[in-house]
């Protein structure tokens, strides 16, 4: 198929960016979206132009590196996939596709389609862990039974890949879904309850400090999340936060 791509080009954080138009031909439905960009880049290099830079790594939907706002949607029009698992069969011959970086104050553009997501790192560093040493000198793994439903819910929250689609989807650029997924994972497990109070207070404080917006319950994050992280996690984090604030 033949497509027209409108791609955000920006040399670095300090220069202004703009959308540039690139026609492309010979795209097959079995190609992934990033393989389509590989084809474009090969053409650009052969012509002596600079290829488009974008984050990507595992290309199987799990590392969370790839991003891209495609026709206004994080990770494009398909549901429950990352951009690397989005296939060109979702598009039609003659389509125009607008490709931009994830937009948020807390995700500044580094170059072209690459953004800086270290704000997510700092939220995790503020409390996204259980304070236990890695000596292996702990109790036997089966010493504390965990209710299967809680274990499954905790796992579902833990499948967040930290891509930032929730932030890019939100009109407030809120990081509530991301933060609440980690808070929930631990809040649901007995071993995570010990420092639950401090964890939620510290992580929320860091989230606010990074300049992410507030949550107004539009639910856009849940719809765009490639891993289907549920809004329930935000509700759970709000409960945890309220409890912690009263205790704290």
């Amino acid at each position, binding site marked *: 198929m033949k497509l027209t791509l409108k791609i955000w080009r920006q040399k670095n954080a300090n220069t202004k960016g703009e959308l540039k138009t690139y026609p492309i031909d010979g795209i097959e439905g079995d190609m992934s979206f990033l393989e389509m960009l590989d084809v474009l880049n090969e053409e650009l290099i052969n012509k002596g132009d600079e290829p488009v830079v974008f984050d990507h790594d*595992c290309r199987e939907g799990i590392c*969370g590196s790839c991003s891209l706002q495609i026709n206004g949607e994080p990770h494009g029009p398909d549901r429950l996939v990352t951009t690397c*698992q989005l296939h060109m*069969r979702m598009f039609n011959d003659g389509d125009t596709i607008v490709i931009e970086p994830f937009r948020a104050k807390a995700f500044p553009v580094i170059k072209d389609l690459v953004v800086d997501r270290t704000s997510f790192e700092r939220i995790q560093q503020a409390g996204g862990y259980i304070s236990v040493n890695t000596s292996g000198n702990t109790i036997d793994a089966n010493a504390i039974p965990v209710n*299967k439903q809680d274990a499954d819910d905790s796992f579902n929250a833990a499948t967040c890949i930290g891509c930032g689609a929730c932030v890019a989807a939100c009109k407030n650029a809120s990081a509530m879904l991301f933060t609440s997924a980690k808070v929930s994972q631990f809040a649901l497990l007995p071993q995570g309850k010990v420092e639950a109070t401090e964890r939620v207070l510290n992580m929320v404080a860091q989230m606010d400090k990074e300049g992410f917006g507030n949550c107004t319950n539009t639910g856009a994050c849940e719809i765009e999340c490639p891993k289907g992280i549920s809004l329930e996690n935000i509700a759970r984090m709000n409960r945890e936060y309220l409890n912690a604030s009263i205790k704290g």
Partner: protein
Amino acid sequence: MSILDSKIPEGPLADKWTKHKNDVNLVNPANKRNIDVIVVGTGLAGGSAAATLAELGYNVKTFCYQDSPRRAHSIAAQGGINAAKNYQGDGDSNYRLFYDTVKGGDYRSREGNVYRLAEVSANIIDQCVAQGVPFAREYGGMLDNRSFGGVLVSRTFYAKGQTGQQLLLGAYSAMNRQINRGKITPFNRHEMLDLVIVDGKARGIIARDLVSGKIERHSAHAVVIASGGYGNVFFLSTNAMGSNATAAWKIHKRGAYFANPCYTQIHPTCIPVSGDHQSKLTLMSESLRNDGRIWVPKKKEDAIAIREGKKKAKDLSEDERDYYLERRYPSFGNLVPRDVASRAAKERCDAGFGVNKTGQAVFLDFASAIERYGKEQAAMHGNHNPSKEEITKLGKQVIENKYGNLFQMYEKIVDENPYESPMMIYPAVHYTMGGIWVDYNLQSTIPGCYVTGEANFSDHGANRLGASALMQGLADGYFVLPYTIGDYLSKDIKTGPIPTDTKEFDEAENKVLQQLETLINNNGKHSVDYFHKKLGHIMWNKCGMARNATDLASAMTEIRALREEFWKDVKVPGELNEMNAELEKAMRVADFLELGELFAKDALHRNESCGGHFREEYQTEEGEALRDDENFMYVAAWEYTGDPAQEILHKEELKYENIEVKSRSYK
């Protein structure tokens, strides 16, 4: 040629590690504060090592090329992690895990290392649960297990099809705790481009900041390389796009021996190649072989009809199907080790029984599992006379619970619903058992340079069993290295900070800069990918699942010629001092173009078949791998001399005192 000393402690197998831990020197807590350690790579092996060393009190600097440690490719491991917990009461023990691993590796791994791995495996599970890793559980709240290839017990712990992700996030959380305490300084979006050796000891690295393009000097008292494997030398593999051998290859060029480069794992269950545009291959977890049955049509006409779209899998009755693994290997069936399953798939496809458009695929069928689980579920819910539809519906739910994300991934890529028609799969490059040679302490032949995880060669011999890579990565990082590196660092308590304004750092930095500038200014005709794809073709066709002396010799010549062409004609756009993805790729491919030649050389010298290394000249009448224990029961460790073709072979003889060496049989 020299004989390498593996430094395996004396004494009975089961006591070696305990005795060694008691014998090593310790560093007192106050002195640890004055010692710096660099960790390159933040996957399971690097992340766990960094967190543990920081907890102990060392100052740790971590380096990864991704924008976060959480994105290292350990995250993509799907099926599970082995541990000899014997929770199922099916007769598992440390010895059995040791035995299975040595046998699975086709008697080409080190007894002492493998036993230690088995010994610490149970601890890993305890540790991860304490960290909040949400493993799969049964209704009673206890941990669940599944079975993997090459073993007769259920010892694999898992978190759906995302076990690697959950374990890596566990290690990442342990790292975050130390970053928050200021004990780890993370250098993300940084790539190590050389090792700095001062007075014969590893004392630092040269790294490039991938955002600004600036070259940086970092010093430390010891350097840990945990940068993963080199599967991307094949261009197409299940590795991440950025997975590379640069850190490992650079230390090799600085004096670390490279062991068994030809031992590569071609994983049997991957989504087949669909076209020339393909950039990577996707694995379908080995855990699927717990429930999926592998088959091709019995008759060639049927295979052809399926390829041409005239027939579908479900049109073939049971007796028109050849469940070739169950036929050839009745006792292990679909759960034979990976190398055996891959070769069997290739054999059927080469003989003309392959099933997708290209004829390079076999079926992985869940219909009987869906039926079995459906009946079981119906009975559990008191329905003793269920209809076919009810059975299918209930059975699909069980399969979805176990493998939902894998089925979804398959459907997105292939555009076919695997609940309805069987998956089509084919082998793909997945893991490299070879790597930097290390002794029992995980130290390379360069003092102070340690290598952990897939980047070293130590534990899997010529073939790795499923769910053992995660086990090794975490064992090395959480439980082995923190002890052994202390012994080395105990001699550095009075050294003080290592300065970076020395001639050794100057020399290394200049060398790196020169290489980068050459690439940027080369202005050739072809992109980096052009060369990488060509290299991949040579590797797959001549150093792939079946190898022979003629092809291997010509692979060496072709790779050498391609390398020369690369340096003459590669085109790298952009500038040095900016984010430049093409330049990053060029540096990595330059190293693959050297490593590939050594790979072929190693495969050519090993005149036997063992594990993942299959030489057509050496096979039994039934087509099974034929080892030559008399002449090749050794680790081949190569010393760099300036040219991959001229590397010098050093041998480490392998001794088996606790296990009877016999020919591997899964029949």
